[in-house]
């Protein structure tokens, strides 16, 4: 006879202990980092590391550079992937395994190999290859597994074929179908893809460091080598940004997630 699920779960007392241990495991390093970021030598604790950090022009330059690269990566990723995933689902479902394979390639190829390959292959115009914008090409590839997955799941949940055909029968041309019938209903997936891409780009180090661009992650590494408390403060700020991004996914995703039809 099957055992009821409730009797297989730990008792409430044990649950509290387990949650406490897990919480401590995750929170202890953060608390320690937070305390260290406030340490100003001896017994002094204050916000001087944060103040110095926020007063440094390089901090803002690297942050803005990474933010700009993240936005460009999001734009390019969505421009490339939204029509591609839509087309593959509607017109070429047999190509889906190929797309799946391409999408997991960034997991299999080491970042160092990717950056070497990019340097060797891309001998494009100076306005691209000679500027940090070149990183966008690499970041689109890095973000591909996440953006593809999120968009693929979002479109499969939506039954885009029926929605698209319904809009078409009502007089919508293909651009209108995309803009007014598909994209508004993909809000959750688009926000998810955007925020995941932002998080990846904001934390990416290998590409930027090897190609000698001073992004936010490279700056964190630099500060870490020169000032311990500032590095801790920067790490916490970086965590905070990631948390905000995750919170954004949760809140906007929940609000933007379309509830599909069906008998109640």
């Amino acid at each position, binding site marked *: 006879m099957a055992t009821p699920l409730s009797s297989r779960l730990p008792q409430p007392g044990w649950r509290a202990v387990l949650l406490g241990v897990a919480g401590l495991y995750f929170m202890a390093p953060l608390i320690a980092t937070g305390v260290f970021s406030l340490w100003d030598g001896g017994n002094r604790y204050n916000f001087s590391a944060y103040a110095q950090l926020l007063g440094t022009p390089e901090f803002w330059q690297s942050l803005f550079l990474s933010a700009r690269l993240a936005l460009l990566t999001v734009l390019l990723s969505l421009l490339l992937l939204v029509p591609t995933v839509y087309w593959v689902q509607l017109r070429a479902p047999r190509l889906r395994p190929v797309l799946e394979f391409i999408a997991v390639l960034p997991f299999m190829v080491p970042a160092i190999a990717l950056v070497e390959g990019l340097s060797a292959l891309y001998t494009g115009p100076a306005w691209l290859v000679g500027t940090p914008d070149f990183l966008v090409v690499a970041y689109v590839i890095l973000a591909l597994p996440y953006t593809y997955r999120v968009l693929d799941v979002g479109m499969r949940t939506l039954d885009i074929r029926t929605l698209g055909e319904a809009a078409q029968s*009502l*007089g919508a041309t293909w651009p209108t179908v995309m803009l007014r019938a598909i994209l508004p209903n993909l809000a959750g997936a688009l926000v998810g893809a955007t925020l995941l891409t932002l998080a990846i780009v904001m934390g990416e180090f290998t590409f930027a460091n090897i190609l000698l661009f001073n992004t936010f992650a490279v700056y964190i590494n630099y500060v870490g080598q020169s000032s311990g408390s500032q590095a801790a403060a920067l790490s916490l700020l970086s965590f905070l940004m990631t948390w905000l991004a995750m919170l954004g996914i949760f809140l906007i995703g929940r609000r933007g997630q379309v509830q599909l*039809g069906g008998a109640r």
Partner: protein
Amino acid sequence: MLKAVALESAHGEFVSLLGPSGCGKTTLLRIVAGFERPDAGQVTLNGADITEVPAERRNMGMVFQAYSLFPNLSVAQNIRFGLRLRRAPKARREALVMELLDMMGLSAYRDRYPHQLSGGQQQRVALARALAIRPALLLLDEPLSALDAQVRVQLREEIRRIQRETQVTTLLVTHDQEEALSIADRVAVMHEGRVVQFDTPATIYHRPADAFVATFIGASTRLEGQVANPHDGIVTILGVSMPATHAKGFAARTPVMIFIRPEAVRLNAADEPGLGLAGDVVEHTFFGATTRLLIVLREAVTLMADIQSTLAEGFPVGSRVRAMWPADAPQVLRS
């Protein structure tokens, strides 16, 4: 794959495409809608060739089998969608939306979202949205198949009422023969990519064009026989002469298939005098008002007979009976 399809419907007519799964009826509807292109042949609307016209310019409203409302739009916004694309003046747009909401009994739901509606309500909104653009042709792709039985019957009647009110020419795809026969002015029965019969529901039911239609539509027993007297409409089945008016067009001794509906069969006890096919009752199936009896004739041929349940006790399992039918009841087809 579609092979030989020739359909023409008059203005304001309700036509059903009926057939088993895979017979090509949905493909045909999608070709009419403009979602698929035929390899050969023509689609014409009011005399104009629209074979190459893209779906968005065909002005055909469509209701899909799957729930197809735009999830991010309210009921009223869904209905308004096609009107906005056509840049209809706001006042006219709103008046039309109100009129359709009223017609569908959805006025109280105008600001609700699709996920807040039942399946039947969603399909009503989809119908209103399709009608809002004043379509030249209304296409219904199994719109009731996802609904439960009671809602299906109710919505079926509503669709018929609304179609009569609006007089919009309608093409319905369904595999449910009761639905097709009850709702349509004419039914096109499809089989293996061909339209095998296109006629009124009554003709399809009583005078099926071939063996497929005879067995696909409703229940019937197929018996092998021979035309005995074409002049008087007599056939021989298992050595017994039986009346069949529709045998009159055949030459004597032509081998034929005789299809007889169970409700046309009349039973008598075998010891009573009279003509008919003698057999043994082997099974009773209770349907409520009627009971279906299975009667084994000579050479293990089985005949179905539906009789009033109140009379079924007179023919218990194991009893010997004699089966007869009115002369114009059986359909006679060449073997």
